């Protein structure tokens, strides 16, 4: 797992420059040879899994998730994000509906979350009342 992750990180970085089919094929060939020469061929399934994880993370980094209690349009979602200083331009905006929010919305990026949902506000109120703080 430890080695597989390092292999995956190296391959992922090299893959960023492999824009053509030919370059990609060469990369795959070189990876297979390098892994085999080090006696790490058994790590290949793990390496693939780690590459998928990295891809997933990279996608997350470039994605703005907007979850609302009711159906909203993409442009409306982008406007809400902009209102909170989150620039959606150049990023993938995915939006979904979650009835458990009761009302409002939640905008989430890799390192920031704007929670304007009624669910969390009501939960805060509940906690304040029950703990007396």
């Amino acid at each position, binding site marked *: 797992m430890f080695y597989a992750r390092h292999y995956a990180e190296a391959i992922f970085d090299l893959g960023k420059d492999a824009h053509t089919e030919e370059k990609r094929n060469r990369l795959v060939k070189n990876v297979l040879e390098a892994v085999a020469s080090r006696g790490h061929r058994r790590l290949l399934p793990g390496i693939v899994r780690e590459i998928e*994880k990295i891809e997933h*993370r990279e996608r997350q980094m470039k994605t703005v998730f907007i979850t609302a209690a009711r159906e909203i349009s993409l442009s409306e979602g982008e406007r809400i994000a902009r209102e909170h200083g989150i620039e959606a331009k150049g990023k993938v905006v995915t939006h979904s509906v979650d009835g458990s929010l009761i009302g409002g919305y939640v905008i989430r990026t890799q390192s920031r*979350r704007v929670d*304007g949902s009624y669910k969390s*506000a009501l*939960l805060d109120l*509940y906690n304040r*009342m029950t703990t007396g703080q």
Partner: protein
Amino acid sequence: MQSIVEKLKKEIENFTPETRDEKIGMVVSVSDGIAEIEGLPDVLMSEMLLFDTGEGKTLEELTRETDAVIGMAQNLEEERVRAVILGDYGKVREGTVVKSTGTILSIPVSSEMVGRVVDPLGNPLDGGGSIKAKQRNPIERKAYGVIDRQSVNVPLHTGIKAIDAMIPIGRGQRELIIGDRGTGKTAIAIDAILNQLNEKPEDRPICIYVVIGQKDSKVAKLVHQLKQKGAFDYSIVVSASSSASAALQFLAPFAGAAVGEFFMDQGKDALVIYDDLSKHAVAYRQMSLLLRRPPGREAYPGDIFYLHSRLLERSAKLSPERGGGSLTAFPIIETQEGDVSAYIPTNVISITDGQIYLEGELFNKGIRPAVNVGLSVSRVGSAAQTKAMKKVAGKLRLELAQFRELEAFVQFSGDLDLNTKKQIERGKRMVEILKQDKGMPEPFPRQVSLIFGAINGLFDAVPAERVREAGLKFLTHIENHHKDILEKIEEYRDMPEDVAKALEAAIASFKTAHGDLFSQYESPR
């Protein structure tokens, strides 16, 4: 009832949903209570993190959840943060959102904690209801500096004759209790707590007993004992027993120190017992290895010395300007086969202001408490020792050390001169006088009277096997017929001429009243 309804109405009327802007990260992997997190910009070292396990759950489900899963940021790496999870890590999964709090991990502290058993996060474990606290103290805090401190000058009596006489401890001191398993380390700490009952309530320190990796049954027994003797009214137990996670065991002594500091900052005295730091080091080693920190000697991480030094440095006697409070620490270390030169014991010995070394051999010989006087020392406590005790116990340590040397010599030579014989006989009686049952701490005036009698030859004519009995009878005699002497010692904390004379007279009257104790034995001539 009306007021509750009014309060609720007011809360609901004023309710305005606020948008929360939070710095978050996301769990990418979890294993053995360690979470790897991506995101979390500007996270601090030891910052408290909240794992949001409520995503996708309904409001009703969330209100039913009582325990928030919290964590503590430990490794701040280039792209990731590794954090220890302080709670049910079964609830944390890949993709769980982690919220940054912007504050160092802290625990609620209040005087309501007295008489309670809590976990290292301040949550009650005794089923006695929640603890209200207005203040939170950080788990990690920089110790007070030189200007804020004063030297140790007030004694902390343990009620154990051998310790109060020869290894005196002062308030604000850090005195290590070290020894093999089953040599009475915890018993000394408990006796020290119980003995505070003999102090005036205003002088009584708050005693905090920190359990690290001990059996739950032992904790239950301890709490029962303290309650039974009435000592739980000024005690707090911070428990991270062996069933707690390594992270909680690692936090326990820091939580104990945070609670102790709360009382110290109010100008009060507190005593904190860390039982024990060997297990604490093991818990920290486990946590560090899981955090993939490089192992050093015996696989302990490189900062194991700093871990214990920063903990014990928080003990202090504060200056009058700071309120004059104190935090005394009794760290406990368990040795293997009496090896005090192992890694963790030597570390803690060098950090503390002295050590009480308990020896298995003495324990097995029936000398209890099994304090090895030669290897035990108090580096700062003598300044705090009461004058009365200093006067009577001044020669005790030397006499005992000489006795131990001669005792070894006697094994090779039977023919001894009179002086040596006398010294050996006196030494045997001193050892007997210093023997004490556990759970029976002796108030300081009684200790002074007994040791005064011993050094003035009261027991020289008593057979060694009857010395303990004679000692008890002597103390009963003083209590019944010369109570004023004990009161004067308590009041003056000194041994003026008149008190010494009164004690001599008490010895004479005791000898007359208990002639049977002295007639059966002929001391060496």
